[in-house]
C-alpha cells in the first residue's frame, strides 16, 4: 500500500488499539493515587517540600506518559494502520494485528513497570537533594515505587489481557477462521506457572514491602522523637501519639492495598476463568450432542494451547461427524439397497437354479437328439454312398444309352438310305410297268383293230375276231395287272415316302434323343459330382455330429456342475441376505447414534 493512499476503515475496528491499551492508564492512576494517599497519611514529606514533590512527580508522569504512549502505538502499529485505513483488512494484515494484540498485554505490563521503577528512581534521585532531605527519603520513595509498581503493572496486564481477547475476537470476525487464528497465534512457551508465581510474589511482596516501609518509617520516627527528649512523661506522650497516629489512617491505607490486591486477584481469576468457562460450555454442548462450527476462544499460555487444541478437535469432530452422518446415511441406504439387491439376487438365483434345471433337462434332451442325429447322419451317409453308387451306375447307363442312340441314329440313317434306294427301285419298276402297260395298250389296240377287221370280215373273220378278242382280253388283263401293279407301286411309293419321312423324323428324334442323352449324361455327371460332394459333406456332417454329441455330453456334464454351483450360490446368497439384514440393522443403529449429534452453524 503506497503511503498516503487510504482505504475505508473496517467497521468494528475503529479505536480498537486505544480501547485495548486504555486500562494501562487506570492501573497506573490507581497506584499513583494510592502512593499519594500513602504520602499524605504517613506525613512522610518534609515540611515545605510538597509542591516540589508534586512538580517532580508531574514531570515524571509527563515523561512516562509520552514514553508509554509511543511504545504502545509502536506495539499496535499494524492494528492502528488497519483501523485507520492505511492498510487493507486482508488476512495477512489481520494476522499481524492479531499477533500485536496477543503481545500487547505483556508489553503494557513492562511499560507500566518501567514507568513505575524509572519514575520512582528519578524522584528518589532528584527529590532528596532538592528538598534537603535525608538519603533515606530517596530509599523510601524507591521502596514505594518497588512495592506499588509491580502491583499496578499486574493490574494493567490483567485488564489489558481481557481487552486484548475482545480485540482479537473483533479482528478475527473480519475474515479469519478459527483455524487461521490458531495458525496465526501458535502456542508460545508455557508460562502460566511462572505468571502465577510472579502474581503471588507481587501480591505478597508488594503489600509486605509497603507495610514494611510504613512500619519501619513510623518506628524510626517514633524512636527519633523518643530520643530527642529525656523525660519519661514526654516519651510516653510520644508513644501515645504514635499509637494514635498509626491507627485508622494506616488501617485505611492497608485496606486500600488489600482491595487493590484482591481486585487484581479477581481480575486475574476472571481472566483465567473466562476461556475455561467457554471451553466448558462448548465441551458440555458437545457432550449433549450439539456440535457447532468451532469458535475462536482467546486465551493465553497453556489455556491458549488447550483452546487451540479444543478448537481443532471440535473442527475435526464436526467434520468427522458430518462425514460420519453422510457415511451413515450412505451405509444405511447402501445396506438397504444391498438387502433389496440380495433379495433380488436370491430370487434371481432361485430362478436361475430353476432355469438351469430346465436347461439341464434341455441339454440332456439335446444330447439324446444329438445321438439320434448322429445315428441318422450315419444312415444318411450310407444313403449318400448308395446314391453316389446309383449316380455312377446311372451315368454309365446314360453313356450306354447315348452310344445306343448314336447307333440308332446310324441305323435310322441306313434305313433312310435303304428306303431311298427302295424308292428308286420302285420308280424303276414303275417305269417298267409303264413300259409293259404301253405294250399292253398297244397290244390291246392291235387286238381291237384285229377284232374290228375280223368283225368287218364277217363270218370268215369270226375266228379271227375271237382270237383278237381273246388277245384283247389278255391285253386288258395285262393292263389291269399293270394298273394293279401301278397302284401297288403308288402305294409302295407312298409307303416309302412315308417311310422316308418317318425315317427322317426318327432320325431327328434320334438326334434329339442323342442330344437329350448327352444332356442326361452331363446332368448325371453333375449329379455324380454333387452326390460325391454330398457324400463327402454327409461324412463331414456325421463326424461333426459325433463331435457335437461328445460336446453335448460334456455340456450336459458342465450344466450339472453349474447347477450344483448355482445351488451353492443360492445358499451363499441366502447367507448374504441374512448378513445384509444384520448389516442394515447395524447401519440403522449407527445412523441413530450419529444423528444424536447436531452439527450446525454457530449462533450469532
Amino acid at each position, binding site marked *: 500500500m503506497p503511503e498516503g493512499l487510504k482505504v475505508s476503515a473496517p467497521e468494528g475496528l475503529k479505536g480498537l488499539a486505544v480501547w485495548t491499551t486504555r486500562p494501562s492508564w487506570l492501573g497506573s492512576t490507581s497506584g499513583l493515587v494510592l502512593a499519594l494517599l500513602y504520602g499524605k497519611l504517613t506525613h512522610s514529606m518534609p515540611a515545605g517540600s510538597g509542591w516540589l514533590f508534586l512538580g517532580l512527580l508531574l514531570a515524571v508522569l509527563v515523561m512516562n506518559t509520552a514514553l508509554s504512549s509511543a511504545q504502545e502505538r509502536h506495539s499496535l502499529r499494524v492494528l492502528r494502520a488497519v483501523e485507520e485505513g492505511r492498510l487493507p483488512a486482508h488476512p495477512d494484515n489481520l494476522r499481524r494485528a492479531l499477533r500485536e494484540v496477543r503481545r500487547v498485554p505483556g508489553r503494557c505490563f513492562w511499560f507500566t513497570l518501567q514507568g513505575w521503577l524509572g519514575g520512582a528512581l528519578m524522584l528518589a534521585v532528584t527529590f532528596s537533594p532538592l528538598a534537603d532531605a535525608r538519603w533515606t527519603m530517596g530509599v523510601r520513595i524507591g521502596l514505594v515505587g518497588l512495592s506499588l509498581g509491580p502491583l499496578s503493572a499486574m493490574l494493567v496486564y490483567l485488564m489489558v489481557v481481557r481487552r486484548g481477547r475482545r480485540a482479537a475476537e473483533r479482528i478475527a470476525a473480519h475474515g479469519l477462521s478459527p483455524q487461521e487464528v490458531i495458525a496465526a497465534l501458535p502456542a508460545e512457551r508455557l508460562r502460566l506457572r511462572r505468571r502465577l508465581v510472579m502474581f503471588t510474589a507481587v501480591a505478597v511482596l508488594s503489600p509486605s514491602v509497603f507495610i514494611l516501609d510504613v512500619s519501619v518509617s513510623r518506628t524510626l520516627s517514633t524512636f527519633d522523637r523518643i530520643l530527642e527528649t529525656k523525660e519519661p512523661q514526654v516519651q510516653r506522650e510520644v508513644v501515645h501519639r504514635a499509637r494514635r497516629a498509626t491507627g485508622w489512617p494506616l488501617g485505611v491505607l492497608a485496606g486500600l492495598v488489600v482491595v487493590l490486591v484482591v481486585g487484581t486477584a479477581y481480575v486475574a481469576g476472571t481472566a483465567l476463568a473466562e476461556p475455561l468457562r467457554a471451553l466448558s460450555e462448548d465441551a458440555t454442548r458437545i457432550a449433549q450432542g450439539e456440535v457447532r462450527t468451532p469458535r475462536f476462544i482467546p486465551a493465553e499460555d497453556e489455556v491458549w494451547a488447550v483452546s487451540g487444541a479444543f478448537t481443532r478437535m471440535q473442527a475435526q469432530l464436526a467434520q468427522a461427524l458430518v462425514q460420519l452422518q453422510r457415511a451413515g446415511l450412505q451405509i444405511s441406504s447402501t445396506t438397504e439397497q444391498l438387502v433389496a439387491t440380495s433379495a433380488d439376487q436370491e430370487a434371481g438365483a432361485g430362478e436361475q437354479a430353476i432355469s438351469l434345471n430346465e436347461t439341464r433337462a434341455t441339454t440332456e434332451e439335446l444330447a439324446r437328439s444329438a445321438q439320434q442325429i448322429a445315428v441318422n447322419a450315419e444312415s444318411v451317409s450310407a444313403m449318400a454312398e448308395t446314391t453316389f453308387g446309383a449316380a455312377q451306375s446311372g451315368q454309365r447307363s446314360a453313356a450306354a444309352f447315348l452310344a445306343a442312340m448314336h447307333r440308332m441314329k446310324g441305323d435310322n440313317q441306313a434305313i433312310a438310305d435303304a428306303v431311298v434306294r427302295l424308292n428308286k427301285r420302285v420308280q424303276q419298276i414303275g417305269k417298267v410297268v409303264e413300259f409293259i402297260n404301253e405294250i399292253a*395298250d*398297244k397290244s390291246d*389296240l392291235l387286238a*381291237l*383293230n384285229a*377284232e*374290228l377287221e*375280223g*368283225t*368287218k370280215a*364277217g363270218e370268215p373273220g*369270226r375266228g379271227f*375276231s375271237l382270237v383278237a*378278242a381273246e388277245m384283247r382280253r389278255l391285253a386288258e388283263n395285262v393292263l389291269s395287272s399293270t394298273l394293279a401293279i401301278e397302284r401297288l407301286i403308288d402305294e409302295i411309293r407312298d409307303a416309302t415316302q412315308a417311310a422316308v419321312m418317318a425315317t427322317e423324323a426318327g432320325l431327328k428324334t434320334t438326334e434329339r434323343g442323342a442330344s437329350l442323352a448327352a444332356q442326361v449324361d452331363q446332368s448325371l455327371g453333375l449329379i455324380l459330382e454333387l452326390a460325391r460332394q454330398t457324400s463327402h459333406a454327409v461324412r463331414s456332417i456325421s463326424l461333426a455330429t459325433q463331435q457335437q454329441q461328445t460336446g453335448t455330453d460334456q455340456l450336459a456334464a458342465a450344466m450339472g456342475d453349474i447347477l450344483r454351483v448355482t445351488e451353492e450360490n443360492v445358499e451363499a446368497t441366502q447367507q448374504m441376505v441374512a448378513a445384509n439384514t444384520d448389516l442394515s440393522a447395524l447401519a440403522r443403529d449407527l445412523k441413530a447414534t450419529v444423528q444424536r449429534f447436531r452439527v450446525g452453524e454457530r449462533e450469532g
Partner: protein
Amino acid sequence: MATGSRSITGLLLCRAGDHRVAFAAHEVVTIESPSTFGGLAGSACRAFGGAAGAERILVAASGEAVGVDALEIDPEPLTLLPAPALLGRVAGGSLRGFVQVRGGLWPLMSLVDFGRFLAPSAREAA
C-alpha cells in the same frame, strides 16, 4: 319292233363318260390311241356336255375321228331301230338309229357325220 327296222352286223359299242354310243364297224378304218393319232379328233363326251378326253380314237376312211373312253366290238347282227326325224336333224344328221343290246338302248351314230359334228369343237379345243 317298229316298221322299217333293219339288221346291222358289227357294231362298236362305245362309252363316252356315262353315256353310250354305237358306231358301225364298217365305218371304222382303224382304231388309234390318242398318243399315236396325229390328227384332230373330237371327243364324244363333248356331245354330251362332258370334258374332252378319250382313250381310243375311231378313225373313218375319210379321216374323221371320234374319241371315246372305251369300246367293245359286238360281231352279232343286231336290229337297228330307226330314230325320229327330228332327233336325226337335231343330231346333225349323224344319228342312224338305235340298237337294243346288252340290256340297253344304244344310239347308232355315223362316224363320219359325228366326226364332222365334233370337228369345230375339236379345233376350238386345239
